[in-house]
């Protein structure tokens, strides 16, 4: 069979899927782009064409810039912590010890927990009157008084990052653990014989095997962290004083609470664009890393 015919057949076989994808992904996307150039409200009469006004207003508004900053801090903080903790947990679970299988199975629990459940649990832990965290820090003498973890702008964002990290570091750990299984024993054994210390072994022997899979985890987690909505919505609803308002919450507020579908759409597209740019940058990095490894 010639290559052309093979290609044709492949496209023909993919057509049903492509039609469905276009209908459920493509059409809403195109409609969102159209909406973003109008002043349409969520309900009521259809809006008028306003050109780039929505974009101009959004990009210059202080709330967009503040929200972008908050989202970036959240994404960098939680993804950074998740990567470090995930790799450490994977290294630990890669050691041979009694009960390892049980721990490996437990590792998946936080990740399998629905985000809303996780957020509610952490809300209870952070509760200013009865929370476990307050009991812990006062009993250890770290603080004399109960703290309002989610009530202060400084601690609220950190509290969110920790809650998100607890849930998602296990995904990174699972990916890293799988990658660690690929490291040939001969090489680690040889490096031991050559007298490499633990740090050197990690840096020069293990990390090259981890880099590729970790990059994938990094891309996935960064994109998700940038789009974060549910954990914030359940725990702080963007408060106190908007200090934990992320981009997705701003989109929700604009489009649904304030019913400005047009400007909400423009904001949603800006977020999409940002995430796409991030994903592209990562992809280029991964390709470069793969190229240099070969």
């Amino acid at each position, binding site marked *: 069979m010639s290559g052309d015919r093979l290609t044709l057949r492949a496209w023909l076989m993919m057509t049903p899927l492509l039609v469905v994808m276009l209908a459920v992904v493509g059409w809403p996307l195109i409609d969102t782009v159209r909406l973003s150039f109008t002043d349409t409200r*969520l309900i009521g009469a259809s809006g008028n064409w306003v050109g780039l006004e929505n974009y101009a207003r959004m990009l210059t508004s202080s709330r967009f810039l503040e929200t972008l900053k908050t989202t970036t801090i959240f994404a960098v903080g939680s993804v950074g912590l998740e990567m470090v903790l995930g790799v450490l947990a994977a290294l630990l679970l890669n050691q041979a010890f009694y009960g390892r299988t049980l721990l490996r199975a437990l590792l998946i629990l936080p990740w399998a927990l629905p985000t809303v459940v996780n957020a509610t649990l952490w809300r209870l832990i952070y509760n200013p009157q009865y929370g476990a965290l307050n009991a812990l820090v006062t009993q250890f003498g770290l603080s004399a008084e*109960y703290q309002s973890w989610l009530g*202060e702008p400084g601690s609220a964002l950190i509290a969110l990052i920790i809650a998100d990290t607890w849930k998602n570091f296990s995904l990174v750990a699972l990916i890293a653990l799988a990658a660690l299984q690929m490291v040939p024993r001969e090489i680690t054994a040889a490096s031991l014989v050559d007298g490499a210390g633990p740090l050197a072994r990690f840096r020069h022997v293990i990390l090259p095997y981890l880099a590729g899979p970790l990059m994938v985890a990094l891309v996935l987690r960064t994109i998700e962290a940038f789009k974060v909505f549910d954990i914030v919505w359940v725990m702080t609803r963007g*408060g106190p004083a908007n200090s934990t308002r992320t981009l997705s919450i701003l989109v929700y507020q604009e489009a649904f609470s304030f019913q400005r579908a047009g400007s909400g759409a423009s904001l949603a597209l800006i977020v999409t664009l940002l995430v796409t740019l991030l994903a592209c940058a990562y992809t280029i990095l991964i390709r470069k890393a793969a190229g240099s490894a070969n």
Partner: protein
Amino acid sequence: MKLFIRSILAAAAMGSTMLSAPALAETKLNALFMAQAAYSENDVREMTQRFMKANPDIDVNLEFVPYEGLHDKTVLAQGSGGGYDVVLFDVIWPAGYAENGVLVDVSDRITDAMKSGVLPGAWTTVQNDGKFYGMPWILDTKYLFYNKEMLKQAGIDAPPATWDELNEQAKILKEKGIVEHPIAWSWAQAEAAICDYTTLVSAYDGSFLDSDGKPAFQAGGGLEALQYMASSYNSGLTNPNSKEFLEEDVRNVFQNGEAAFALNWTYMYNLANAGEDSKVAGKVGVVPAPGIEGKSEVSAVNGSMGLGITSTSKNVDAAWNYIVFMTSQEVQDGYAKLSLPIWASSYEKPEVTNGQEELIAAAEKGLAAMYPRPTTPRYQELSAALQVAIQETLLGQTSPEDALNAAAENSGL
């Protein structure tokens, strides 16, 4: 012949069962309620069961969301072509709903008997521009709850009649070491904070908007209300965690005996005073929220809610029947422990008043003084801006004046 008659009878019997079977539950209603405060989810389910028993041809499907999701869920369903027939709505939404045609105008369906039987204040909940968009259902305002035992311990004879008195009494309680933070409020970045703020605005005789519909809360009573909140917070008389509390947090703190005073809705009275998990059962007192000398006797926010029919409903008659049943005096009187009836004559019935005479006495004054939150189609934006203003002030990030000026600018009005 006999056989013939018998077979006709049999056929008729079969025919009738065949006809009546699909007649059961031929109309399906979807109703959206909230799962917090006032009537509990179980109460609403029970009432609905009774309605379906009396109307076997109507099947009501119930959905419950937290208050915080009620508005957006209603609007979203409407935007995507409907889904609900009956929706619970807050007193602040009819203006926006009317502008966007979310609810059916039911002015013609409201009978004279309803008009004369229901308390006049309750009707404001469902009205906009003289039209009726439903029936009032939950008649509610914020009351000042107090712990009788703590006040007695501190040698205080009577609960405060003014907001200044509240501060004085709280100070005594704090100084005597009876309670660390005497007052609890719901000041989280949510609508709950606006309800507390509105109560104070009504006390200070302020106004949200001027006659042109422009913000007017930055000066006068609106400013004084926020200044009161800030000073109460900064003095330590208010529980500092109030800035992340919703109503249920306030109830928890109060019924655990960790507050002497709390501002909350009707539902807290019986839960705190007679609830199994309450540590202050039998010690709960309730009075209308206090006033300001020379300005007001008592203060109150209109926190009532109504039931309406969405304009996308295809079963408007059945939906109205359901609403009439749910808001009927007979049903409301039976559940008066968590939410007081909208019917004037209910307040003379022992089944309603027994065991909650104090609450009824407070309601008489409070309900009469109910102050509305601003009526504007842009309410959600205004409320969000004010919530942030309150939080920024409490956190000490800005002064009450600057916070309210910024809120006026961001209010979308």
